[in-house]
């Protein structure tokens, strides 16, 4: 054990999140450590990515923020009184309008705690959801999740509790809980930030899921493109075992569950749940036909809960504070909060966790501050590479699963990518097909062949070869892929394409 530092030593918080480190957080932390009498705590990121590296200094009033801080600015800031909360600061981080307007439930601890400190985790409310769950009958835990209205945050939006009910009702020698952390959609990074910033929340959520459905083993399928997340989660699982939070007798309850990390190998399609299961089984990531649904015949043919990171990481707060408290947020059938991610050409990119119902425009303009290039926003893509491109005219759309579906779009995993007026939407539509052609598992023809034909057709349209007929052909191809593909890869690739043609048709000319 390292001794507690004396109380007069100032605590300084610097993110260890890979986004923060990509712009110099490690070097900033080193410089601050080298300055002497400070304790540097490495946390997750608050999600205000345009302020990274964001340094926070603990004071009697709260944490004072400084950012973005370049490594070479550290000495000057310290000379200016940074370690006393003085000098050129952003003020109290919790009071920044960007933070104050959010309702952080899933991301409550991200950026606040040391992600690998079990003590920090418990001090900030961790494990209270699991402790509560273990006092309840498994079926009551499932019904609490049903009542909360929680829907799959991976993109499909299927009610989490209903899925759990199916697994609970299935009989088998072993059941599994699998977390889909194959966050391959461009513009989404909340899974990564949660795992790097508060991994115990995911572990707790998966343990609650396992208890609720009677599962003995869990797997987190995590992409190889996220090496820091792999390292953090692997370390956190080992620490959780040491604390008795995982293992044969969790918290002395007699309930046993263990958890393992499996690293992906660079296949986008493995974010599709059945492909992910194939990959976990050690096979090519070929999509399975449904039915049978994974809840009944999932990993190795056993009943399996497959949920996204954010769905599972939201379960602890639901159990700790009750279904009604969670369902009080949101609108219509989109209850609770969602973790939106602003990216691309945006002035203030980052994590916005807020109740469903906020409009797209509020996110892009109020939170995001428009583009980083300073040019007008022309399009935003919501929900990843398979989501629709929307024009500024649709900025009053509320972030709500049904409202988006009605507009021919999808909320997906909550990623919002901003493009300025220089974007060529025909090129983006072509890219959607190119990406599908490269990443298709090849099992079904509409996806495997359709994507290639799509690229060719867009090339002809842009070259003004039989433009009118080829636009009809393109629409026909999109319809066929939507209706005929086995999974969302081929089934949703038409969404960005059709939305680009519909809203930005002027780009599809020679």
């Amino acid at each position, binding site marked *: 054990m390292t001794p507690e530092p004396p109380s007069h030593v100032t605590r300084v918080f610097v993110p260890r999140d890979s986004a923060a480190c*990509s712009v110099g957080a490690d070097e900033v932390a080193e410089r601050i450590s080298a300055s002497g009498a400070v304790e540097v705590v490495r946390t997750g990121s608050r999600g205000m990515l345009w302020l990274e590296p964001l340094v926070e200094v603990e004071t009697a009033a709260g944490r004072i923020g400084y950012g973005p801080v370049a490594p070479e600015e550290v000495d000057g800031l310290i000379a200016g009184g940074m370690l006393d909360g003085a000098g050129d600061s952003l003020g109290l981080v919790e009071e920044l309008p960007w933070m104050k307007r959010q309702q952080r439930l899933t991301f409550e601890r991200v950026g606040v705690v040391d992600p690998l400190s079990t003590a920090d985790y418990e001090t900030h409310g961790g494990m209270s959801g699991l402790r509560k769950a273990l006092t309840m009958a498994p079926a009551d835990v499932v019904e609490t999740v049903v009542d909360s209205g929680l829907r799959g945050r991976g993109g499909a939006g299927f009610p989490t509790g209903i899925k759990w009910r199916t697994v609970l009702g299935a009989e088998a020698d072993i059941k599994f809980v699998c977390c889909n952390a194959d966050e391959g959609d461009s513009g989404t990074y909340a899974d990564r930030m949660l795992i790097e910033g508060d991994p115990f929340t995911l572990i707790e959520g998966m343990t609650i899921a396992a208890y609720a459905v009677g599962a003995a083993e869990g797997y987190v399928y995590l992409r190889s*493109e996220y090496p820091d997340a792999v390292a953090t989660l692997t370390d956190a699982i080992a620490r959780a075992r040491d604390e008795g939070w995982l293992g044969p007798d969790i918290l002395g309850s007699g309930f046993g569950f263990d958890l393992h990390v499996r690293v992906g*190998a660079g296949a986008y399609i493995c974010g599709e749940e059945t492909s992910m299961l194939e*990959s976990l089984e*050690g096979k090519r990531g070929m999509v399975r036909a449904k039915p049978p649904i994974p809840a009944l015949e999932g990993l190795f043919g056993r009943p399996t809960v497959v949920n996204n990171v954010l769905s599972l990481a939201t379960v602890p707060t639901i159990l700790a504070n009750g279904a009604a408290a969670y369902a009080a947020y949101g609108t219509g059938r989109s209850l609770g909060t969602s973790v939106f991610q602003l990216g*691309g050409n945006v002035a203030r990119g980052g994590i916005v966790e807020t109740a469903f119902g906020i409009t797209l425009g509020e996110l892009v303009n109020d939170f995001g501050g428009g583009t980083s290039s300073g040019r007008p926003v022309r399009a935003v893509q919501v929900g990843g590479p398979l989501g629709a491109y929307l024009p500024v005219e649709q900025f009053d759309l509320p972030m709500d699963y049904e409202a988006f579906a009605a507009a021919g779009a999808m909320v997906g995993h909550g990623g919002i*990518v901003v493009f300025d007026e220089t974007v060529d939407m025909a090129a983006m539509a072509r890219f959607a097909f190119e990406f599908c052609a490269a990443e298709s598992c090849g099992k079904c023809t509409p996806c495997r062949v359709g994507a290639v034909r799509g690229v060719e057709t867009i090339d002809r349209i842009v070259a003004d070869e039989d433009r009118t007929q080829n636009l009809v052909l393109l629409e026909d191809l999109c319809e066929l892929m939507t209706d005929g593909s086995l999974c969302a890869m081929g089934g949703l690739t038409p969404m960005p394409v059709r939305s680009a043609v519909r809203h930005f048709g002027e780009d599809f000319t020679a």
Partner: protein
Amino acid sequence: MTSEVVAAAPVPVPGRAQRVREIAEELRGLRGALIPILHAVQEEFGYVDQPDVAVIADVLNLAVAEVHGVVTFYKDFRRTAAGRTTVAICQAEACRSVGAVELAEHARRTIGCGFGETTYDGRVTLEEIYCFGNCALGPAVQVAGKLHGRVTPTRLDALLGETR
């Protein structure tokens, strides 16, 4: 599409087959052990060689074709050694919105090879990646395993200079 060219006669590395067998035997008890084994082999040797496939298949009691199918499905598994430094540039939508396509063009020109290729002197392997999850700080580039954000062509040149 590129077709797989199998080298005429792979040069046997002394002891490699034995070491691959040890890795496979150590991990065979895992559920779905094949992908963890392939990662471990690549971690140690830098790539998965064709003779490794038969050894792994033997340990797992799988057909060579099954293991070959898995190795070739996943982009991560290399079939030849990479250059001394691997430079991976994100080409997904969010990075495209802030110039990743232009950055890739610059990289191809200055490094002197295309995506999926290694320079003739074996110095750099250039790869395209679809998303590092650094979408608010793009363009994102990974150089020798370290992620960098807001990488302009000038910044990329500086990063490449540091690796020399």
